[in-house]
């Protein structure tokens, strides 16, 4: 029989060990990626296109594509998410059936695997929407019914919608009831109150939501796999109907379908490092913004 004290110590040790696994994993991942990739990161690497059948050169088209992807995604997803959050918190009450249905749908959306979004994008945007557009306006010629940056962005917007809704709703709740009442008592309508008082007061929350959505969306490969990402393109995307290269997808193909995986290991590490740097920066700014928001709520 172990004494109580020893059992207690063992337990403390065990919990500490479990906690350490997480820290060690992050350290290991970051360590290997920086170790393997840092030396490859040069201005040339960041600003040039891949060459020699993608075994040399840079990753500029993938960086550019990633930016375009998340920008279009945000332009669509942030307003839709914000409006949903406004609807939920300002126009429905907790018990309303409709609000419950919307909340349930949003929670479900948050739990759907990314690959399912990819398949949904393929089925809904490309085949259904694109197919109809082509039949209507291009007499059946392939134009919108193939993968492109618009469909990929919309698919990603759908994936990141719950993130936006949750963080905007949280921010809206921090706007004091007294301020809404002040506005309404002056004869402002509900909408005027939302526009002039609630939205300005939730600005940092909306920004946080946007950043979190971007950091969640950037690097997701599965949703863009069938909806718009390209293996290699000689041109940068200039239209909604163009395909694009993307950092996460680039890492995926370099590690699985490159003509010479061994030769490109440096490029793989460096691309991953760029992707990580991007999402980390976004995450940290979201955390900082959120901390500011919480401080204001507490005050």
């Amino acid at each position, binding site marked *: 029989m172990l004494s109580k004290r020893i059992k207690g110590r063992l337990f403390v040790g065990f919990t500490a060990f479990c906690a350490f696994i997480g820290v060690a994993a992050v350290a290991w991942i970051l360590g290997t990626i920086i170790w393997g990739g840092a030396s490859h990161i040069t201005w040339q690497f960041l600003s040039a296109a891949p060459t020699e059948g993608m075994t040399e050169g840079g990753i500029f088209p993938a960086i550019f594509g990633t930016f375009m992807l998340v920008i279009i995604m945000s332009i669509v997803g942030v307003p839709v998410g914000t409006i949903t959050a406004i609807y939920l918190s300002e126009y429905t*009450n907790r018990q309303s059936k409709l609000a419950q249905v919307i909340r349930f749908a949003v929670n479900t959306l948050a739990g759907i695997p990314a690959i399912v979004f990819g398949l949904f994008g393929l089925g809904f945007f490309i085949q259904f929407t694109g197919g109809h557009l082509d039949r209507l306006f291009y007499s059946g010629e392939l134009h919108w019914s193939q993968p492109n940056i618009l469909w990929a962005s919309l698919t990603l917007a759908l994936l990141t919608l719950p993130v936006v809704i949750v963080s905007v709703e949280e921010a809206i709740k921090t706007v*004091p009831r*007294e*301020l809404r*009442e*002040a*506005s*309404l*008592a*002056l*004869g*402002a*309508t509900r909408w*005027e109150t939302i526009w*002039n*008082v609630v939205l300005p*007061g939730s600005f940092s929350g909306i920004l946080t939501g946007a950043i979190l959505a971007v950091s969640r969306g950037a690097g997701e490969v599965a949703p863009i796999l069938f909806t718009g990402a390209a293996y290699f393109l000689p041109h940068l995307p200039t239209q909604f109907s163009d395909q694009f290269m993307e950092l996460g997808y680039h890492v995926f193909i370099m590690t699985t379908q490159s003509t010479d995986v061994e030769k490109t290991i440096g490029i793989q590490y460096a691309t991953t490092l760029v992707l990580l740097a991007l999402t980390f920066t976004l995450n940290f700014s979201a955390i900082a913004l959120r901390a500011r928001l919480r401080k204001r709520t507490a005050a």
Partner: protein
Amino acid sequence: MTDSNKTLKLTVRDLNLHYGIKHALQDVSIDIREHRVTAFIGPSGCGKSTFLRTLNRMNDLIDGVKIKGSVKLDGQDIYANGVDTVELRKRVGMIFQKSNPFPKSIYENVAYGPRIHGLKDKATLDALVEKSLRQAAIWDEVKDELHKSALALSGGQQQRLCIARALAVDPEVLLMDEPASALDPLATSKIEELVYELKDRYTIVIVTHNMQQAARVSDDTAFFYMGKLIEFDATERIFTSPKERQTEDYITGRFG
């Protein structure tokens, strides 16, 4: 009631209000005279704020509120079908217990209402802001810093700014819910002076838990207790010869 030939601004008949199952106001009937100050007194939780908020329909915003009875403003029922609450709240302004300036500049706070109602011309707006701040007796203190944040003002100044903000939409009635309860004595007396000055132009209803304040500023006083209007009369009479036992107990400090 004295001066009964004076016009009535608000007449309330058999008003009942429920919060869910809680019967918060029971058969309240009252006449509020134009260009007078009417005070609502009574122990905490007796329904003063609730009643005040029925006069500009602010309770409409709370889930589960049911209101029966009639509230007439200049003879027209404000709860009738088709009444525009925006128009109503323009005519019946409200000052809250906790001063609630917007996190905007002093100028923007006062300009908020007029802007909402469509005033765009800069010169007119400037003049209106100045006039409202003067009426609220705060112009001299803020005239050089109109574009500073309203949140930088002291509590008493914030409350007067809120009054200026309400005045800027040119209301006929001002509802004040314990406007000085969070202020120090000096700031309180400023608000009281202001109430006294404003009654020439506005009809004022003020909730207070401070009996001296009610005695000082009001012409008529209504005593509420547990959701009922117990007694309503000229302030002088309420404080010198109340008819009801409960009123007397309350004003002599035996409860509440």
